[in-house]
């Protein structure tokens, strides 16, 4: 199963332990994760379900191309990294 892990910047705000997720797309994997960690959803996605502007998702080190519907596909051994995008201030 794909594995998901989160930036420690997010752990400061909400519990988001790394884990295994089911799904063949980023969307499906995130939904699987949110089912057991519902508080994490609003930190990663906005209310339209899109990736927040300053959050980045990588699949095996490559950033996703579809930030709106999160359709990028996964393989069973993928690693999903949810990171904070770089921003100033």
């Amino acid at each position, binding site marked *: 199963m794909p594995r998901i892990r989160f930036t420690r910047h997010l752990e400061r705000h909400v519990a988001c332990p790394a884990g295994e997720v089911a799904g063949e797309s980023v969307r499906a994997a995130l939904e699987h994760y949110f089912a057991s960690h519902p508080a994490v959803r609003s930190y990663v996605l*906005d209310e339209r379900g899109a990736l927040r502007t300053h959050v980045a998702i990588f699949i095996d080190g490559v950033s996703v191309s579809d930030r709106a519907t999160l359709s990028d596909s996964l393989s069973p051994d993928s690693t999903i990294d949810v990171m904070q995008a770089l921003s100033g201030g």
Partner: protein
Amino acid sequence: MQTVLFSTRKGLFAAEGSAGRVRVRSVGFLGDNCVLSMVDPRDGAWYTALNLGHFGSKLHRSDDRGATWREVAVPVYPERPADRPVNPRENMGRPAPWVLNLIWALEPGGADEPGVLWCGTLPGALFRSADRGESWTLVEPLWYMPQREEWFGGGAPWPGMHSVCVDPKNSRRVLVGISCGGVWLTEDGGATWRVQAKGMRAAFMPPEQAFDENIQDPHRMVQCPSSPQRLWVQHHNGIFRSDDGAASWQEIGEAGPSTFGFATAVHPDDPDRAWFIPALNDERRVPVGGRVVVTRTSDGGKTFETLTRGLPQQNAYDIVFRHSLAIDRSGDRLAFGSTTGGAWITEDGGNSWTALDARLPPIYAVTWA
């Protein structure tokens, strides 16, 4: 002295003072962007809105004066209905996404409505909670009215609702101020709305549209608790006063060094007594002459005093945002904070000020607790 909460770019700072010194007593959310705080006089709860740069807007509540906090819900915009296509002219040709960008106003409902909160947001919308922020409901009649699409952003990409005034004598009468969308009134708790900005003047529009009520840019609107018919507005183009509950507005032509600014406060028991913090003008948003001053009228705007005692009078470039001047229920204590982290408190209505003994991050909002 009571506690003053400074919501800043890097945390929530609670200050207290005595014997002429004001010090930070505690810090919450250190490192996080706190955009505003509200203290509910009905149950003593503290609320702080965060705008986490990466992870969105959040709202936290404390029932023990900041010792512990719990995350509650934030307003959620609805999905755009299929029969509501995007109006390409909305927001001057930049239609806003239906996504929460910022919590920009948070006010308690009336004394007869325990648990009710109002929240103004960017893009300009009003939300209501009946359960102390555990859940929020969009005030749909305001959001779906066609005139809302004529509002536009001033200083931000989207129009923003920054002021919510609940009539202390009639909780169903609520006024909201929008940059740039004028002032809107409901008298039935949010079911119907009408614009109430007659007399306001917008120099940033073509001359023919200068008095269009729906595009005015009130920077901040406050209502006198004991005389709710009296309102004060610091507007982008000057200071305005209403004596009839916002039905009409009179421009105040002169107020000390300048009528440009963002913040205003009104005395809780004296509608003629109000405070402003001027800046040079729209083009140069700095204190006039490098001197931080507060202007005060005690006669409804006929005359103003320029208050300087205890405030920096040279090489000071502090700008005070719209939520960063607050008055307490006594009417004698005021506090303000600047975007360069300066903060001052008075206990004599502004005759003399004491600087906070700290160098704070940029201050976005000031609240008495």
